[in-house]
């Protein structure tokens, strides 16, 4: 029996927390790898959104429709929607991972962790980092379609995109945990998808651009004011915009704004999640 052998090698608090963080992170990643359903979703979303929707709408998005110039933008629709689909896949997977907090709570794993010598911050961070990593992997699945959508993916561009995606994953996973902490009964993932992800996605100018060549007043003429307002206040708008800037070199807002919004969202949402978690 090896009981007590640990006495001599008892590690520092920080090392123990880091080891635990790695354990929790590893668990999330292993679970995700085993989850066929999630993987299928991660593959089918990009295929449907990029291939089917992208190709379907591509002709309508040409600079000319047999001589008639409509919207003049320096990209094709496939290129335009691509960064949005990256964000969509990241969001879906982030929230999926975050929602597993509900199951962990219901089915005991959370208790097993809460009675470990790990601090609450470490536990939450492990959970969120694990979920973000999985979400980042799912975002990369979309990047595999870059050739198809004619995205010139350079190494620098890919690295920048990965950085943005990582912060976005962290922010959305935190958001998922914040919401999951507030629900007592679990109605299934569909509720999240329909109530959180899709509305955020559709109102983030991921699917259609608010025409960049129009001035603010003209935008209000082209689109109803309420829609423009929603899009303007949706933080995801800025995240997708920055991602678009990195991937296809086109952005409506300054890059710092997109990065700033995502980082701020990550910090704020994580703080809220931590506050909730400390009380729970």
């Amino acid at each position, binding site marked *: 029996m090896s009981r007590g052998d640990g006495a001599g090698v008892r590690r520092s608090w920080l090392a123990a927390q880091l080891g635990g963080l790695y354990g929790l992170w590893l668990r999330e990643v*292993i679970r995700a*790898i*085993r989850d*066929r359903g999630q*993987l*299928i979703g*991660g*593959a089918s979303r*990009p*295929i449907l959104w990029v*291939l089917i929707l*992208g*190709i379907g709408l*591509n*002709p309508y*998005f*040409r*600079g*000319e429709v*047999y*001589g008639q*110039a409509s919207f*003049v*933008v*320096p990209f*094709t*629709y*496939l290129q335009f929607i691509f960064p949005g689909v990256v964000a969509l896949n990241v969001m879906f997977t982030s929230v999926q991972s975050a929602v597993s907090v509900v199951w962990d709570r219901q089915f005991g794993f959370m208790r097993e962790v809460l009675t470990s010598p790990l601090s609450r911050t470490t536990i939450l961070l492990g959970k969120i980092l694990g979920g973000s990593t999985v979400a980042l992997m799912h975002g990369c*699945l979309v990047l*595999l*379609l*870059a*050739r*198809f*959508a*004619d995205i010139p993916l350079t190494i620098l561009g890919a690295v920048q995109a990965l950085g943005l995606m990582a912060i976005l994953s962290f922010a959305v996973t935190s958001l998922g945990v914040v919401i999951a902490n507030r629900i007592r009964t679990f109605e299934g993932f569909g509720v999240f998808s329909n109530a959180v992800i899709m509305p955020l996605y559709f109102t983030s100018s991921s699917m259609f651009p608010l025409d960049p060549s129009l001035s603010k007043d003209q935008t209000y003429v082209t689109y109803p004011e309420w829609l423009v307002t929603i899009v303007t206040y949706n933080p995801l708008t800025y995240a997708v915009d920055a991602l678009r800037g990195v991937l296809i070199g086109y952005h409506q807002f300054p890059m710092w704004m997109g990065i700033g919004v995502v980082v701020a969202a990550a910090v704020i949402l994580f703080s809220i999640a931590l506050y909730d978690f400390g009380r729970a």
Partner: protein
Amino acid sequence: MPDPRRLARNFGAIGVIVGLLLAVTFLPPDNALHEVRASGALRACTPATYPPLVTGNPDRPGIDIELLKAVAARLGVDLALNVNDAIGRDFNPRNWGLTRAQCQVIAGGVVDSQQTRSFLETSPPHARTGWAVISPQPLNDWTDRTIGVLAPVSGFDRIGLASLLRDRGARIVVVRTADELVAGLTARRFDAGVTEALLASRLADEQRWPVAWAPPSLQRYGLVFGLWKGDLTLKRAIGGALHDLEASGTTAAILRRYSGAPLSP
């Protein structure tokens, strides 16, 4: 030791999905290339003349035309030209009055710029252009010198050039043709000449004069072929053909034939 069975269980599904997504990228996203192959001809809109890109001379048709012919040959189709005088009048392709019904490729004065890309898809650039300086004797100081300027038909930045020359204290004489410019330089009426880079290097080659890019404060452009947005398959096929031509030295040979030794970018 990684047990292959366990590895397969853990990463098998991921492998399958990555494979599926990569396989999907080989699906043709549109039928532009298919259309070209079906009709047996690559239709190109070009200006009547835009030397040295398009000359109008059947024996020496111009850089863009020769390149497109080589591209069409690689695609296994003929090249059909559709002459449109508006092309190259300025740098904004939207003003050229082109439609998808007329042609699939636009050649002869399409430059790689944000403005072009807002309207057209572009092939990778096959040559660089911009203002270039030729002079019988190298010129270090432009003060009180007379400069002959031959402006090409397209929308080069004439204002930028004019203010640069004036800032350096040069006198500007505008000429109409290449012959006029060469005559002026030969007769020492001009100390130097400024014109479009490809033309400049041809003249320099013929006269054995040195040639150089104008100062980098003046914009340089990549010369490209224009394609309609969304014709991704055609764009890839043309891009691939151009890449092959570049690799086999055909592009360089064509450029040498029209402009001597082109200026390195």
